[in-house]
């Protein structure tokens, strides 16, 4: 069982078969993570560089744990500043790292397209851990894994993704991946944070949260960056909360089986009420758990594990 991908750069254009294999493999690794000894020898001897140009705790730790549990050697390379201000070009940085004989690079960068750029600079396998506003494919995979484990399927389910769609690579990856898997995705947020061009890409949009969650099987809330207020995208936190916060009242309008998700970190009381975040419908911590399994699956499938055994 393998996938046709050489790198994981995004979910746009990735086939249903490949996504299914990644999710199935992640389920297998989920079982491994329930054992007392959570380590498998699959990627022994492989060096994986975690190249993080943006602050990230959750994603970096999740990848590092996945690498360790596959017996790979992780190497953390965190740069708070961009390559430009550092004085070394990204090409030079990656060439230097490659010269030390590494196998895979997990990259997070503030500029869209950096994972593609790296594939043109190096022969190493590239995994996108978030590039600018573009994509965050492992996040979307772990979201789909969580939904599939909870609801038993993906096909035909309706997902409402609500919040700052414009600045969200999570929304982009989920929109492509979930649509490929036959799910109905609706994007919701104030028009200032909702790129009008999604509609011509076949993803419906609304600025009305009640319309968005109507009939939804999954409600995914996105983090609102407070800086967006300064740029004039919405007037006040209070008005945003009144219009878009997912609270108990909204939850009660939906069937008992609805899943509440959030890629984290949560702004409690802004996009998501605390009692909902901690309530029975919330699968937010399962998302985090599944993230490790999904990243193990991706590294395993791309790292040649699929061929070796």
């Amino acid at each position, binding site marked *: 069982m393998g996938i046709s991908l050489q790198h994981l750069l995004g979910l*746009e254009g990735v086939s249903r078969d490949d996504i299914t294999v990644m999710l199935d493999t992640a389920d297998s690794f989920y079982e491994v993570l329930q054992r007392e000894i959570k380590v498998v020898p699959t990627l022994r001897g492989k060096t994986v560089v975690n190249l993080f140009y943006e602050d990230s705790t959750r994603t970096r730790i999740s990848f590092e744990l996945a690498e360790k549990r596959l017996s790979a050697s992780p190497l953390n390379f965190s740069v708070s500043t*961009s*390559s*430009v201000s550092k004085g070394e*070009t*990204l*090409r030079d940085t990656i060439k230097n790292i490659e010269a030390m004989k590494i196998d895979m690079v997990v990259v997070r*960068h*503030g*500029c*869209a*397209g*950096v994972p*593609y*750029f790296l594939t043109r600079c190096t022969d190493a396998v590239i995994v996108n851990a978030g*590039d*600018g*506003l*573009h*994509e965050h494919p492992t996040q979307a995979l772990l979201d789909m894994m969580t939904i599939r484990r909870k609801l038993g399927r993906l096909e035909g389910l309706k997902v409402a993704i609500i919040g700052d769609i414009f600045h969200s*690579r999570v929304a*982009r990856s989920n929109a492509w991946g979930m649509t490929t898997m036959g799910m109905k995705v609706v994007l919701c947020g104030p028009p200032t944070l909702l*790129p009008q*061009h*999604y509609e*011509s*890409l076949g993803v419906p949009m609304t600025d009305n949260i009640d319309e968005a969650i109507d009939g939804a099987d999954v409600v995914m809330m996105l983090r609102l960056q407070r800086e967006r207020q300064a740029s004039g995208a919405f007037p006040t936190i209070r008005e945003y909360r009144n219009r878009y916060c997912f609270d108990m009242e909204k939850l009660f309008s939906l069937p008992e089986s609805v899943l509440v998700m959030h890629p984290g970190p949560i702004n409690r009381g802004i996009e998501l009420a605390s009692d909902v975040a901690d309530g029975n419908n919330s699968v937010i911590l399962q998302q985090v758990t599944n993230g490790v399994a999904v990243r193990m699956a991706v590294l395993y499938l791309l790292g040649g594990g699929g061929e070796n055994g």
Partner: protein
Amino acid sequence: MVRKRENAVFLTCDYSRPAPPLVLKGGRVIDPVNDIDRVAHVVCAEGSIVGVVDEVPARFADAQTIDATGKWVVPGLVDMHVHLREPGREDKETIATGTRAAAAGGFTAVACMPNTQPALDEESKIRYVIQRGEHCPSRIYPVGAITKGLEGEELAPIGEMVHAGARAVTDDGRSVARTNIMRNALNYSKSFNIPVICHCEDTAISWKGHMNEGVFSTRLGVRGIPTIAEEIVVARDLLLAEYTGARIHIAHVSTAGSVRLVREAKARGVNVTAETCPHYIALIDEDIGMYDTDKKMNPPLRTDRDRAAVIAGVADNTIDVVASDHAPHVPEEKDVEFEAAAFGVIGLETSLGVILTFMVHRGLLSPQQLVERMSVAPNRILGLGRGSLSPGDCADLTIIDPKARWTVDARRFHSKSRNTAFEGMKLQGYAGGTIVGGYAVFNRNV
């Protein structure tokens, strides 16, 4: 002095000495100003046109001859929008290399933009550029800054710069954001009968954008530069020109809306001319593919709808001029993250080929119209007094080989930089020779 590179020969000339007689034999001579389009010989002597003749006069029997059979012989092409980077960024381009690229592209003259380091915002800097260009294989006409340091605050000494040889003013690379300053610039420029060249961009809207805002930028996750960022300022500057009666020239038109605004303004008599660039005629935003920084420029590549409108504008003369916006950059500014990459592409050596391939050979522009957009109109707008082949006119000529098929290969360029948006593209037609002041400064076939 003769410089050789592959099949090309460049002469560096002392134009103050009268050139020896030269005969261009048997080409299709296209001179829209004199309504000439026939196979004939062009006789030049002492740097001037002697005449377009069917028989070469006996006294020129021994003159140097260039066989132009099967080619077009036209008034010298002028690229009125280039960045030669000197002074300041000679690592990207110099006046010497930029004018060689110009000659190789068929341009007998270029107008260079003032966003150098320091900016061309006073008389001495204009004189410096003119002096550096004296013996170069293409004539060079500097464009002065509208405001000191291109900062949009105080007017630069426009009169002194014009006196020193500046042919227009612009803050190209940015708009004059403050409307009152732009109004003053337009009013003030009326004393000198020069055009004010407008780079139209509302940076409050285009801020942080790196490509056209649309479906494709949404897919790539790159912040967009919407068409209105250009159109709002095109509209403003047209209104200012109408109100003040000044002459404006809209640089690098890229959107359908700008074409419409210029067309409407011309119809009601506003004193406006406009230009576009070959890349807006040949390429669209989707050609950026997976973040190709060699297709990143400002204004950005737009949609197919915009491209069609720009082509229609060039065809119906709403857009008077095709200019390259030649913008050389070093690899370390281009071979980087898309959002960190510099804006701009080079174009001097591909302009003619692209227009021939995408417009003339497709029947969208006649050869006469090509000569109007690339020679007659820029000559007229900048007041260079050329663009025709009347007896006594300056012997600036371009020989166009319209049939030659070639593939763009930046390694063969004469420009110092390689950031072309057309790498690998198959084109039909290029300059076969360039004659400046009666000197054959570039001859592809020698």
